[in-house]
């Protein structure tokens, strides 16, 4: 692969490193970025734009943008392609022309680092509020939000229709420095109404930031005509926590706690992804027993997440009174109890450690788990039967929110929604970790790609997960659960990218070490970020009632988007 790129673009590859047969690190000439990417996409099947990370190399007076490219099943190579640009007036060519879903990743890098993307269609703030743009908070020389006067600067304005709005005017110093006036602004609701509404029968309706459909605060503005959605606008960032930046200021071990908080339904897999990346930096592998315990927990976590996701989705269709939700919660309680018996916590486990796990399995765990799993399997089959035989449910869900395989790949979604669109793309197969290669499981797919298929995939994955756990319980060897580690975890300078299959899809952690006790940069590539981005095109032309069904069938988790 490397030689192919080098021969096609002589002199453009500045640095390269082949880490394994699945990771290729290259640094390319910023001028040739788009051409090389196009070559990789068209000639080498890199049809999946997995994400992008900005890195502030302040010591070398450079910014780095890392594009993560991979393929939907044609091969298993992940290319980490870096471009380096100088710190003053940083600018990189945008990849939005090649990959539709590069949009949000580039916007995030722009608002956090101030790296401009040439040719980006809508470079305005995504996660940050308007008044924070221009501070570039993720740069290494950022000294904290210096301005505590926003409350005083807020100006109360009464609009023509009698409603009060608060506007925060930019800081005078920043206007003087010329940072603020150039910045593009996120359109306000009124501006959007004026721009989009064409006839009297149309209106823009808010769904969110506080709304029954949303799993966390995000805003969905629907341009509707009658009951039809003509266009959808999405705004996230209401609860942005800056976890990636916080982790730069914590030691490696302290960082594990933050990975829990990104999405409490997937805390084990988030732990796993972070610890896996640091293990690669430390160059250790956990002992086999620890690997089995991790797999057991990851699959338990997947089951409980799918149960809650499906249950919540069902309540969206038929009010909170639709009963299966309650039964799924009761079933989930058993699994949470099992996980609690191992980790001591119900949702935020902080259990996986570098080179092992915190605790061993409790005595008699297998005897306790087997009946629960057996009942879980029966119940899941019952749910599948129930949903399949409900005529109103099938009428509502069939053919709704259809993602064709091509669209699903183009929009960059992963996990159950992608597999429901006939694409067997599963990190446990594509980028096998731990003992997954030794285990027998099948990647569940569906042809239809509609909301019904997505729910079916989730329910069937529960069965597969139960199968995996049962194999693990049979095969798990005796032995140590923790590799020997130094007292202070200080990985050699370097970088690692590690992917796991989250309950929702592809979860990747990109960790850079500079040899100190704290990571230099942690980048999270979360699956829900991609779902959210894919939501507006999916909603166009749907009924208002289907918006709920489609958004629910994606099983999104805002907390992870606003990490």
């Amino acid at each position, binding site marked *: 692969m490397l030689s192919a790129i080098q021969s096609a673009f002589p002199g453009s590859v500045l640095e390269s490193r082949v880490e394994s047969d699945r990771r290729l690190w290259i640094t390319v000439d910023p001028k040739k970025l788009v051409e090389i990417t196009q070559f990789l996409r068209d000639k080498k099947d890199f049809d999946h734009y997995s994400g992008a990370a900005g890195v502030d190399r302040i010591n070398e007076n450079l910014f780095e943008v890392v594009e993560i490219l991979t393929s939907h099943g044609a091969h298993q190579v992940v290319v980490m392609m870096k471009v380096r640009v100088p710190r003053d007036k940083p600018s990189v060519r945008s990849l939005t022309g090649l990959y539709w879903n590069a949009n949000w990743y580039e916007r995030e890098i722009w608002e956090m680092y101030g790296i401009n993307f040439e040719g980006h269609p809508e470079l305005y703030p995504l996660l940050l509020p308007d008044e924070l743009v221009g501070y570039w908070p993720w740069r290494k020389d950022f000294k904290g939000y210096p301005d505590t006067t926003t409350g005083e600067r807020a100006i109360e304005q009464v609009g023509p229709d009698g409603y009060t709005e608060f506007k925060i005017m930019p800081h005078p110093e920043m206007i003087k420095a010329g940072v603020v006036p150039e910045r593009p602004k996120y359109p306000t609701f009124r501006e959007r109404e004026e721009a989009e509404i064409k006839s009297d029968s149309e209106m823009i309706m808010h769904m969110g930031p506080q*709304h029954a459909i949303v799993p966390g605060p995000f805003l969905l503005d629907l341009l509707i005509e009658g009951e039809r959605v003509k266009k959808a606008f999405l705004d996230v960032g209401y609860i942005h926590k800056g976890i990636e930046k916080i982790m730069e200021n914590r030691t490696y071990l302290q960082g594990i706690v933050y990975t829990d908080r990104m999405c409490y339904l997937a805390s084990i897999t988030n732990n796993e992804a972070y610890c896996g990346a640091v293990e690669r930096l430390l160059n250790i592998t956990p002992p086999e027993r620890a690997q089995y315990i991790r797999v057991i927990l990851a699959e338990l976590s997947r089951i409980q997440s799918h149960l809650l996701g499906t249950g919540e989705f069902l309540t969206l269709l038929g009010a909170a009174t*639709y*009963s299966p939700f309650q039964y799924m919660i009761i079933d989930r309680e058993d699994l949470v109890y099992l996980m609690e018996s191992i980790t001591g916590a119900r949702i935020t486990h902080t259990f996986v450690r570098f080179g092992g796990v915190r605790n061993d399995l409790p005595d008699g765990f297998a005897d306790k788990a087997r009946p629960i799993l057996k009942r879980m399997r029966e119940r899941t089959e019952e749910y599948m039967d129930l949903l399949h035989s409900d005529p109103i*449910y099938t*009428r509502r869900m069939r053919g709704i929110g259809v993602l064709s395989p091509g669209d699903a790949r183009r929009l960059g979604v992963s996990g159950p929604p992608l597999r429901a669109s006939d694409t067997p793309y599963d990190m446990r197969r594509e980028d096998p970790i731990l003992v997954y290669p030794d285990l027998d499981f099948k990647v569940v797919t569906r042809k239809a790609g509609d909301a019904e298929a997505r729910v079916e995939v989730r329910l069937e994955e529960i069965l597969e997960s139960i199968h995996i756990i049962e194999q693990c319980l049979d095969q798990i060897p005796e032995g140590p659960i923790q590799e020997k580690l130094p007292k202070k975890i200080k990985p050699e300078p370097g970088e690692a990218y590690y992917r796991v299959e989250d309950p929702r899809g592809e979860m990747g952690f990109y960790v850079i070490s500079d040899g100190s006790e704290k990571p230099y940069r942690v980048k999270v590539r979360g699956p829900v970020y991609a779902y959210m981005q894919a939501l507006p095109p999916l909603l166009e032309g749907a*009924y*208002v009632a289907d918006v709920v069904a489609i958004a629910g069938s994606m099983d999104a988790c805002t907390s992870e988007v606003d990490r």
Partner: protein
Amino acid sequence: MYLSTIIEAVSAWAAQEPKIYALAIGLIGAAIISAVINIGAMAVVWLERKFLGDIQARFGPNRVGSRWGLLQLGADAIKLFTKEDSIPRGADKPVYVWAPIIASITTMLVAAAIPFGALRIDGKDYPLVVANMDISAFYVEAALSIMTIAVFMAGFSSNNKYSMLGAFRGIARMIAYEVPMGVCVIAVALMAHSLNLVEIVESQTLWYAFAQPLGFIVFTIALVTDLGRIPFDQSEAEEEIIAGYTTEYGGIRWGLLYFQEYINMLLGSILLVLLFLGGWKGPSIPLITVLSPMVWFLMKVLIVLIFLIWVRGSLVRFRIDQVTDLGWKWMLPLSLVNLAWAAFVGLYFA
């Protein structure tokens, strides 16, 4: 029996002073009816909370008023009465204020013509009805559809997009289902040779649910739709449009809108029992002969209510276009088929 003597004396007096009799009966009846339907609806709310709780494997109200939560509704009412009464800026104030009142008046109008059971005295059933008019079935139908106006008033005056969508949906749904519902009532009237609800009940030697099963099914579905309950609660689908036409209402105004839904549910169940399930007809029960029609009547109403709650606990919601689709393309033709069947049977066999 002394009861029949009283009745005879009263009827004699009524013949002498018809106007005073009518006024007295009206006032006493209104008082009794308001009490009965309000207490009845409270019982329905309690029943729904408890039974829905059972369906969903939870307890339901179990703190206020013994472990059955009997006083929960009283507590809720106190809360609603003492809440701040706010009217949103930009609302059409008179319409906004009158919408819940009209909704409550509608239910009272319906209740006036509906028999709430009967007493069996000397082998004869005396129906408990305030306004025993000749066209009561027709009148009840007509009064029920005034609800549509109240819903639209509430939705339109709130100056809120969710309310507006909810009102549109409510109107579309109610229009689509009032028609088949009315046709079903006509079919029943054809068989009973009367539009009077009391006579309809008395003519049911065979329940009309068996005489015209198609009509029974269509009427039941149309009734659930008219009541705006799952799977037909699009006008207040919480997950899509917050609370539909009631979004901007709060405090006791919302309480009225909420409560009239349950009064409607009770009245609807009674209507179904009267039209299709033989009303209060049933064999006499020894010892409580006088009350035996009442027992049968309440038992049937209770079964219908539980059925309605059960439906709510186990179905998902239709989409609004599917609802109108079902209404115009299936319910209306089926009700017409049923009408033809009723006419045929009613003319040649009844």
